[in-house]
């Protein structure tokens, strides 16, 4: 029991970080970023390259993933989403653009890093064992790091001036403009931040589960599921959705083990029932 809970918590923290980035981009720009999973994969491969191939410390590799993805996110916003949003009258245009970016990143990742599953040397050795719990130290460390990033992100959004400006923009675009907030600049900052979070989680998880070029799509799907569970555009919803999905996955893997690989089948079915009862998720309101 404790084991299942600890696994769910560890997984949920990673998921919550992914969902936070996705929901931030949605709240600020009304863009569904279908390329979120690919950004995660790119972050994973950058950490792999810097840590495993170049032999630099893991922290440096994680930092490189974050900075690279923030840059990629900023460029994508400035040169792709911004002109499309400015000129397009239909909202679907941004969705199609996001899907195209997902395919583009998939192809680029395959070209740059190949199709092999990649892993890295353990970041810390050893396993924590007690009567109820067996947990490798590297998982514990990665879990703690993810929770620290969530806390830092929430504090940044709540108490910093740029964080306040982004919340304002998400809640009332025109009123925020009248306060002197530059929509362009803060959309770019928000997109960069969202992409950075995806990249950092990719970097964190490469240390545990490795990375391969094909998992961008499935990660995006999970991210969308979390946002559906919690409610789109809400910080609390993203965190709740992440932890709930992590917990469901952990419980499912242990409880449904005897019936084969059906955990996600059950989760999908449950999600459909849930959404038909609560289409806006647990806390469907704009950024709070």
């Amino acid at each position, binding site marked *: 029991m404790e084991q299942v809970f600890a696994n769910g918590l560890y997984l949920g923290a990673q998921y919550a970080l992914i969902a936070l980035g996705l929901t931030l981009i949605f709240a600020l720009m009304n863009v569904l970023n279908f390329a979120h999973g690919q950004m995660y994969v790119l972050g994973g491969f950058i950490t792999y390259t810097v840590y495993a191939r170049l032999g630099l410390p893991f922290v440096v590799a994680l930092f490189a993933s974050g900075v690279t993805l923030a840059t990629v996110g900023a460029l994508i916003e400035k040169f792709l989403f911004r002109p499309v949003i400015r000129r397009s009258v239909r909202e679907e245009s941004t969705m199609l653009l996001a899907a195209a970016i997902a395919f583009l990143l998939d192809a680029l990742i395959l070209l740059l890093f190949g199709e092999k599953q990649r892993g890295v040397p353990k970041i810390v050795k050893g396993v924590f064992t007690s009567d109820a719990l067996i947990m490798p130290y590297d998982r514990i460390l990665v879990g703690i790091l993810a929770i620290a990033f969530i806390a830092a992100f929430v504090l940044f959004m709540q108490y910093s001036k740029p964080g306040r400006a982004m919340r*304002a923009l998400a*809640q009332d675009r025109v009123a925020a403009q009248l*306060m002197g907030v530059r929509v362009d600049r803060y959309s770019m900052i928000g997109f960069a931040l969202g992409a950075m979070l995806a990249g950092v989680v990719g970097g964190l998880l490469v240390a545990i589960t490795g990375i391969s070029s094909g998992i961008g799509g499935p990660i995006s799907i999970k991210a969308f599921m979390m946002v559906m569970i919690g409610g789109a555009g809400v910080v609390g919803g993203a965190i709740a959705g992440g932890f709930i999905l992590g917990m469901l996955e952990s419980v499912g893997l242990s409880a449904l083990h005897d019936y084969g690989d059906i955990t996600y089948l059950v989760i999908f079915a449950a999600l459909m029932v849930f959404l038909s009862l609560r289409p806006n998720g647990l806390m469907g309101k704009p950024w709070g």
Partner: protein
Amino acid sequence: MTPLLAFSDVELYYDHVYALKGVTLEVHEGETVALIGANGAGKSSILRAITGLKRVKAGEIHFAGRRIDGLDPDEIVRMGLAMVPEGRRVFPYMSVKDNLLMGAFTRSDKAGIDLTLEMVLSRFPRLKERYSQTAGTMSGGEQQMLVISRALMAKPRLLLLDEPSLGIAPKLVQDIARSIVAINRDEKVSVLLVEQNSRMALRISQRAYALTTGSVALSGRSAELLDDERVKQLYLGGEL
């Protein structure tokens, strides 16, 4: 003396329908000027043109000696102009405190911001009581106090108010009218007030412009307009 705000021959269109055709008006330093007129007469379009939310098609707008039509809203706001939008538009999921801090977004003088914060909280003690409350849960009147305070947090030279009495309990309309007079007098802020409640607007302003279908029909000293037969008929709804 050059006016603080000047419109000359401004035209503004929504798609192909005109909202303003050749509006000329001015607001001088220290004045409270009212814009009255029926729904759709173009009052709000004037404010949207000033703040850059809507581009004008022809004519010029000058503020504090600089031409501002064509600039982005954030640039215009930085020049010392603050607007209280129609329908209040608080940031509903933010605390009163965060709403007020957003008002000071363009400022970075910490000490000055604290002083302005003290000023608005002593002017509207209700906001002090509700300081940590989520803005969206407050009453309409309280939200109106909040958005006026939020605009004052920018320390503007000109305050634009779009229908501050709309949807507010009649008793509170009096309070808000009094606040506008006090702000104009004590804080040396010039005010451009758009109102459907023409009587209130004419009582608290020094000058006024009456609009009909996109152009200025009448203008003059508010006290005189209040007694003008045409104004009475067209804008004050008669004395029925």
